[in-house]
């Protein structure tokens, strides 16, 4: 991974068209500003993870036995009846 140190107000450029600016540093959080072509989506990594996981979940086709085994496992975890 390429690493550079930046302070608030400083920026980096990625390629010819993407600018990332450090707007604010507060505690453990950093506020970033992005300037990029409209066709480039800038999204939080967590949202991408949620999308990918939803696609995987929608594609998965558990059998009735899979569902019952999972349900039983959850009930065991909660101490409920199986």
């Amino acid at each position, binding site marked *: 991974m390429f690493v550079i140190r930046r302070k608030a107000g400083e920026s980096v450029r990625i390629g010819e068209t993407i600018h990332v600016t450090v707007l604010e540093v507060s505690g453990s959080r950093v506020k970033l500003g992005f300037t990029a072509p409209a066709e480039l989506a800038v999204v939080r990594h*967590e949202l991408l993870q949620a999308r990918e*996981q939803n696609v995987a979940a929608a594609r998965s086709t558990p059998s009735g036995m899979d569902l019952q085994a999972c*349900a039983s496992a959850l009930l065991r975890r909660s101490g409920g009846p199986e």
Partner: protein
Amino acid sequence: MPAMHGAAPAPLDFEFPLGLPAFEHLRRFRLVRQEEFSPLVLLESGERAGLRFVCAPLELLDPQYQLELQPGEAGLLGAGDGLLKLVVLTFPEEGCPTANLLAPVVLNPATGRGLQTVQAGSSYSPCQALRGGGGCS
């Protein structure tokens, strides 16, 4: 909170004003509870036949879960007590089922609205393995 165990009550219909991540264009989902799979529930699309998500009650997977609604999400859900909090499960062809703790689904039966809230900045996993579930060796 309405009971998630026992006899299967009638399905509940929910509107998701923002859809779900990767399925933003789908706004209507139905919560289906089948006794033989309790406490699991199904979230079925009302617009795309065959699209469904297997979900589990969040409190069963992580009783200590700290859910934080993002700005604007509480307004989308509307007022009302008894929010249902669910976690979407994935059943890979091999290996344990996994739970998306990063992005729980929150339903408000009082308003018939729901959303999937991404817990940005948290350490929750999008694919937490469920040991002992179906397919687990």
